[in-house]
């Protein structure tokens, strides 16, 4: 696919895992009164120049989900950039509730694998721009592309080819792909650029690269491979680098960023 003549900036997106109203895993911020408060952390990233925010609801029970709506509402009232919420979204009713709470986009993962029509239902009712297909992808399996879709955070392998799934989801109405590499995730050795460029080759919607960021120089590699946006969690949470550091690296590599 040819490159688009556009002055669109590449997006830098911090991701927060939230359970029961608290940020879980790897937050170690100095000078933040409550590092576990997702709203405070979201505000911090907003002030650093984040282009969007993603919340991943890792809550286990239905009761706990109520807290997530409150977190989304409080964030949307203070942070004036787009907010994507994923994790446990199973129905258009869940989407309606998240949007009413202040989310702009909703990430759908396993529920769409179980019932692909959910993608069309969400896109038809709320618009494709709301419907982010979140994929946890791993190398291996018996798929044509060599990349397979997994569930349960990569622990369970399906027999679905990741590229075929992405193309089908776009046909059904997905407006964005959030591509998380299970192989790269946690390695800190960089994004899976082969996966990103394959995804770009089948995708007519924006691609967000996720998994593997360990150093600022990894981010331009993901963009060069074809990503429209880069997402990371721990490198931001543990204070190793700021959003500004990543944007500087992207700009130095010749990319357009929002200053």
């Amino acid at each position, binding site marked *: 696919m040819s490159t688009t003549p556009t002055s669109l900036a590449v997006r830098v997106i911090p991701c927060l895992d939230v359970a029961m109203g608290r940020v879980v895993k790897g937050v170690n911020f100095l000078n933040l009164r409550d590092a576990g408060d997702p709203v405070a952390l979201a505000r911090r990233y907003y002030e650093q120049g984040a282009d969007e925010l993603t919340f991943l609801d890792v809550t286990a029970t239905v009761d706990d989900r109520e807290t997530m709506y409150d977190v989304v509402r409080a964030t949307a009232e203070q942070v004036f950039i787009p907010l994507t919420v994923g994790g446990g979204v199973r129905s258009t009713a869940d989407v309606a509730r998240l949007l009413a709470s202040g989310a702009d986009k909703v990430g759908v993962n396993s529920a769409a694998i179980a019932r692909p029509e959910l993608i069309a239902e969400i896109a038809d009712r709320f618009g494709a721009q709301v419907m982010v297909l979140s994929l946890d992808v791993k190398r291996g399996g018996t798929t044509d592309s060599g990349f397979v879709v997994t569930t349960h955070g990569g622990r369970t392998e399906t027999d679905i080819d990741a590229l075929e799934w992405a193309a089908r989801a776009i046909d059904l109405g997905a407006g964005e792909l959030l591509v998380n590499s299970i192989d790269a995730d946690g390695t800190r050795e960089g994004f899976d650029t082969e996966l990103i460029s394959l995804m770009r080759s089948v995708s007519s919607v*924006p691609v967000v690269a996720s998994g593997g960021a360990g150093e600022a120089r990894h981010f331009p590699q993901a963009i060069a491979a074809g990503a429209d946006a880069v997402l990371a969690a721990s490198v931001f949470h543990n204070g190793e680098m700021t959003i500004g550091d990543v944007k500087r690296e992207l700009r130095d590599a010749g990319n357009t960023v929002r200053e």
Partner: protein
Amino acid sequence: MSAPSVVVLDYGSGNVHSAVKALELAGANVSLTRNAGEAQEADGLLLPGVGSFAAVMAALVESRGNQIVDRRLAGGRPVLGICVGMQVLFERGVERGVDTEGMGEWPGTVDRLRSPILPHMGWNTVTAPEGTALFNGIEDERFYFVHSYGAQDWSLTGTAPIAEPLVTWADHGGRFVAAVENGPLTATQFHPEKSGEAGIRLLANWLRTLR
């Protein structure tokens, strides 16, 4: 001078929390309602819009929001349309083969952008015209867009004593209308309430035009 009052028209259009809070931050006294009286009396009316052209238009007609907009404009009272809330101000919208009549405040059709990658999602620059009040001091900022459709032509001109509409353009696989300032009627294809500080400043610029 007290804060200008703004009604965010509540006709069931998705996420409006940020619009309310962003307007407050910009200096307005904001209420979220579909009450026609309140919507008529406010200094400004914000018309949000998320989803498909057809769905937004249907919801507007059902809640009589289109009448509220018409009456305000007939009285020269300011209205700000955002995203699909801007698109429905045109004559028609064509989405996935569905041709829907809009409010017809402006001539023209909203149709699919010509970029290989859609939606147009993210922070883009705009080209604002001479004399813009809306982009005063923020002409070089980026704003957050998320849409696959847009008005790609503009044909309405001004005939004295009616001033020429001020049209701001953006580009994604071809140019499209990013904002319009046309007497009491103002609109943006992007989301000022999602455009960080630049968006708050744009809303403050609009509030300054209210009285």
